[in-house]
């Protein structure tokens, strides 16, 4: 299982990455995260919504309401330019961390 802290840190880039592929709504975003991670990333679904609101406040994403199946209103999120920039820099950061971790752990394996 992924730790809570890491979950919190990774939620935002994951959401940004999903939205980079096209606009989406809350339920669907969560399902995607779950699918991609193969069940390793799990959260209480309701906790996603405040994060989305926060990202909207920071102008990383925008939202608008649309009527969908069954005439229920649904809030769709779209990534903004600022969000794309943020995603790019997050990707780089994550890559650095990954490389650093790999660099440290590979010799250990070799030493076994």
């Amino acid at each position, binding site marked *: 299982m992924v730790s809570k802290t890491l979950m919190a840190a990774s939620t935002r880039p994951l959401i940004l990455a999903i939205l980079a592929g096209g606009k989406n709504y809350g339920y669907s975003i969560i399902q995607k995260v779950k699918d991609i991670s193969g069940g390793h990333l799990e959260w209480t679904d309701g906790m996603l919504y405040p994060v989305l609101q926060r990202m909207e*406040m920071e102008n990383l994403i925008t939202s608008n309401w649309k009527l969908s199946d069954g005439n*229920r209103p649904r809030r769709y999120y779209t990534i903004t330019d600022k969000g794309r920039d943020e995603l790019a820099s997050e990707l780089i950061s994550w890559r650095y961390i990954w490389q650093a971790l790999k660099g440290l752990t590979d010799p250990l394996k070799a030493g076994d």
Partner: protein
Amino acid sequence: MFDLEKEIRKWKKVLYKHEVFDDGVITDLELHLRKTYQTQREAGLPEEEAFRSAAAQVGEADKIAAEYDKNRLAALIRHAPLHPRRFLPALVWHYIKTALRIIRRRKAYTFINISGLAIGLCVCMLIVLWVADEWSFDRFHTNADRIFRVYRDESATQMFSTSALTPPPMAAALKQDFPDIIRSTRFGYWRRQLVTYRDKSFNETRYMHVDPDFFHMFSFPLLKGDPDTVFANPYSIVLTEKTAAKYFGEEDPIGKTLTVNNRFDVIITGIIRRDSLKSSLEFDLLSPFDILIKESLGEEVRDNWGFNSFGTYVLLEAAASLDNLNRHLKDYLNKKYSEEDTDALVLQPLTDIHLFSNLGHDLHNRGDIKYVWIFSALAVFVLLIACVNFVNLTTARSVRRAKEVGLRKVVGANRRQLIRQFFAESVLMSLLALIFALLLVECLLPLFNNLSGKELSSSWLKNPSFLLIFIGLALLTGLLSGIYPALFLSSFQPVRVLKGSMFSTRANPLFRKVLVIFQFSLSVFLITGTLIISRQLSYLRHTNLGFNREHIIYVSIHGKLHEQYNAIRERFLQHPDVLHVTASMALPTNIQSTPGTPMWEGKDPETVMEIKADFIDYDYIETFEISLVEGRSFSREFGSDPETAFIVNEEAVRRMGLESPVVGKKFGFWGIDGRIIGVMKDAHFQSLHHKIEPLVFKMFPDWLRRMYVKVRSGDMALTLASLEKTWDGMNTGYPFEVRFLDEDFENLYKQEARLENIFRVFAALAVFIACLGLFGLASFIAEQRTKEIGIRKVLGSSTAGIVGLLNRDFLKWILTAAFFAWPAAYLAMHFWLQKFAYRIPLEIWMFFLAASIGLAVGLITVSLQTLKAARTHPANSLKHE
């Protein structure tokens, strides 16, 4: 049977309890729940289990709400409004409309509130005008912050601790010795001067002499003439506009000649505008200082460092260090003039002179920062009392407004909007009050000028900064008096208010009590102050001074008049209504100490004693009806009197330690040896601020400067007219300018008299406003208790009993107020009385009287209302709802 929709409704109900979830969020979450439920159903779970699982998947409402709360906080911090704007401009007009409606509906209430606020504002505005006027002194000069007056700090010797008077050579010497001092001027006069143009002549008391630098240091605008050349001719003169008009009317004065003291001529080279400029330098005419030395003082004075008689002003280099200069000036006199001179020179900023200066021998009438504080504090008091009225009345009326608040809340107003609405009301009231206050200021300005000794005009209307200050003041008053009602009224809970369970009797009694007590404390404080100040003043006026100053007029005998003194005296004495004619050097109110210690028989060489001395003519003791305890007065029968006779007062005898009989003992000063011929009873020649000091009279015919004429009480105007006729008939060459001695004595207490007036007016205002509030409050309380009163009457209460019942509360409040006011008043008045060497004792009855006055006025006000309520027929009051 499981009902999904019902379960979802239940689930949503929990969400609605959290304020942070707006409709959008709840829609989001509901959709999420439904989708998850659907997925679980598809996975094969039974309905109820699928719902439980989906709900668990969405998560606990508390935790989600906590996250949203964090976002809201972040939004608040970053000022990024998360919600749609709460301030709706469309509502502003609505706020104003509601406020206007309230104002229209409740006329009496509005009247009380607005008139209270208007009076408070008016007083504050007058004070603002006054303070601004006091503050503006000397600040119009371009170089105001670089101009300083040089004064002597004489703390090393004992006579006065400071003196604004400096010797003639100092200005030039300072400029020469200190590169930081780039310009300097003397500023002074020498007695009054008779100035004549053709048939017009006036005794000029404000004929000043300055150096040419004057025009480059100060920014008095020259309407005519060039600052570089006005004093090119050593015998030139510059007049103020007003003075020029006095002599020349419409004529152009430039190039015309004025004659001074019938001795020499000066030519007019410039006209200066001074009238509207607030300056501590007072003058009507200006001439080069050299004229004074050549014509009045004599050449030997030019370099006399001991001749301390004039002001010295300097202009510093922009970068000069004041501390550095003051350090060097400390022992400047000691090095420059004499080793015995230990006086330090100090630079005093020009802008401090009017309000912050308290130097000895100062030349002019000064303001006093203390009065600025007293005035400002009183103004704030009155405004506070007016604000308290507003708060009090508004909260008292809360019963009426509670239902309104409840309804507004029910139809969706949030608290902030209500707070805004109540602020709109209070601000609107205070703006209305401002309009009345502006009108009031216009009406009261003359009265206020009289009170404050100022000449303020309504020119502030043209001055936008004043108008802005006034509007700001009104807004501040509105906000200040609106805070409590706004918070209090908007906090009502609609459920309780609409049920009618909230206000059974009186709302927030404690707070209102505190406010009323506060108002009345201030009122009682001011009444006490007024009472004690006027007691002290009447004590000052009616104390037996030890001499009679009534029906004495005096004429200055300067210049050539001095030579004619004896002739005038003889002629005046022939007049049937003239009782005595005498003369002296100094006015009795202004007898100065003489330098050095006198010598007397049996004096211990170590003893130091300061003594005041005046030089007088025969009949002085008789004219002023000073009683002698021993010996005799100066008399023509004793040829040696003008040379060697002294009359001292009892205090001098006591201090010298002379034993009876004192008459005949040796006495002298300034190297004049003589004997004491009489001892006079101690008399208060000085104001009662000061203790009686040792005093000596000596004859000195050459030094007489003032002639006193004691006339029979009767038709003063007639006597004066015939004396003037005699005077004119003698062709003295001087106008007959008389003054009354008792006016001079009255002037000693001018400040106190002014303070008394101010206190009286402010106390009256404070009591009036407080009573307005009390009146309003009493009427509301009576209204609230209408039913109670009705029932009491039905059960047999008398009108008096009910009035007593209603008044009891107010009585308690006012008495409590007195307990707070007394110590404050005691301290303030005790402190004030310390200024007087002779003063009334503070007695308990004064405090009781002040409180009783407050109480009586308060009770009468309240009773007007309660009586009305108590007299209402119970049938009517019980119908009341």
